């Protein structure tokens, strides 16, 4: 219930933060919605917390050509409610709106969530389907990679020591893209037991574009390329959707816990995929 002692700093600039984070015992503090509960259970005990809340450059949402550049410290509530996000990247807004509860969304940040790499977080399904990119800034400068490459394993990312997630970059959704995030929440914690995000476009009645991101099913989120391939070029009839969705969990080692066995979790993944595809189709043209 009570965290261990730690030192605290709240730098005003990114540069100052990076300098503090050069200390191997230091960890960044974003919204705190993942880190603080872990510290209270004493499962995490950083020696120093570097609070990023005063760094204004991390709070911006801006359009940059064909993409949206979202600062790491933007909260889930801001993503759920900002007109720019709701219009230009509705799938991201939908995933943000599905996170936790109102209080958690008011505090929690996309950067914090992405850096934490919880296999049962909501964003990964959407970020994979969006082919999002993650911007990292560290002592040696800035670099960018796909979100898919960024998450390596459960709670493990490509972050180098002293590096911060500073922005998430998502595409501005082309008109005529149908999107949907379908989540089956773990009934106690609210985390997705399974969450599937879908983006589809149609041309002449056939699926011309499909992206399917899955979270919660296993140790890390993934793009269900097998589903995408089966959808593309098809008419997305009910039968075709079911058939495409049937492979969403193929070859994936599904997690198991007291809330869902591996078999059931895979079933939920199939159902969520069907429902996400069906729900996104009406807006796909």
């Amino acid at each position, binding site marked *: *219930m*009570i*965290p*261990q*002692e*730690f*030192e*605290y700093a*709240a730098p005003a600039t990114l540069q100052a933060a990076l300098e503090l984070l050069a200390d191997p015992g230091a960890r960044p*503090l974003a919204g*705190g*919605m993942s880190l*603080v*509960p872990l*510290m*209270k*259970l004493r499962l995490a005990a950083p020696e120093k*917390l570097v*609070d990023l*809340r005063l760094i204004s450059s991390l709070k911006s949402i801006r359009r940059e050509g064909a993409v949206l550049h979202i600062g790491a410290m933007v909260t889930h*509530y801001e993503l759920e409610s900002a007109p720019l996000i709701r219009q230009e990247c509705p799938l991201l807004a939908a995933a943000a709106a599905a996170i*936790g*509860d*109102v*209080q*958690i969304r*008011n*505090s929690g940040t996309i950067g914090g969530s992405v850096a934490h790499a919880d296999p049962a977080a909501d964003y990964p399904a959407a970020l994979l389907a969006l082919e999002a990119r993650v911007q990292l800034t560290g002592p040696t400068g800035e670099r960018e990679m796909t979100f898919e490459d960024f998450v390596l394993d459960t709670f493990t990312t490509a972050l180098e020591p002293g590096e911060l997630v500073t922005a998430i970059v998502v595409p501005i959704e082309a008109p005529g893209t149908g999107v949907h995030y379908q989540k089956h929440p773990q009934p*106690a*914690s*609210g985390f997705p037991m399974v969450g599937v995000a879908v983006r589809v476009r149609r041309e002449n009645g056939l699926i011309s574009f499909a992206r399917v991101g899955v979270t919660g099913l296993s140790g890390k989120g993934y793009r269900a390329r097998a589903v995408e391939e089966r959808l593309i070029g098809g008419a997305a009839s009910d039968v075709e959707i079911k058939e495409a969705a049937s492979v969403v969990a193929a070859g994936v080692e599904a997690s198991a816990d007291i809330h869902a066995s591996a078999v059931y979790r895979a079933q939920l993944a199939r159902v969520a995929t069907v429902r996400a595809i069906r729900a996104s189709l009406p807006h796909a043209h």
Partner: protein
Amino acid sequence: MKHPITVTVNGNKHTAEVEPRRLLIHFLRDTLFLTGPHSGCETSLCGACTVALDGLAVKSCAVFAVQCDGRDIVTIEGIANKGSLHSVQQCFWEEHGLQCGFCTPGMIMASRQLIERNPDPTDTEIRHALEGNLCRCTGYQHIVTAVRAAAALERK
């Protein structure tokens, strides 16, 4: 090593020296003697600790007091207006939206946030907005009625 913080709580400025690990809820309850926010769990799920931080409903059990330096906090003790109950408080009373009262301060703070953002919420929207607040006594029905009534009152 303690940090100096200055926080405005319910309109009053407070300066204190706090350990970085001191949770906001304990700072409010044990340093400022505002025992309205309650601790009901250890995993930031029950919402009994909900306060408003810069106008946003947050779980004070998952925030450190040091994160609140220079910021504005409102607790249940601060939402009445010069002795006149806030409409959410008034309607919880009218509609029997509480029994043991332990979840109530947090429930009222979350309901207040909902009405600020959504002045005419449906019952489904109300129940969804209260996902972060557990109640064991009421079965939520009178809480939903109370929130609907408060929204109507605020719209007048």
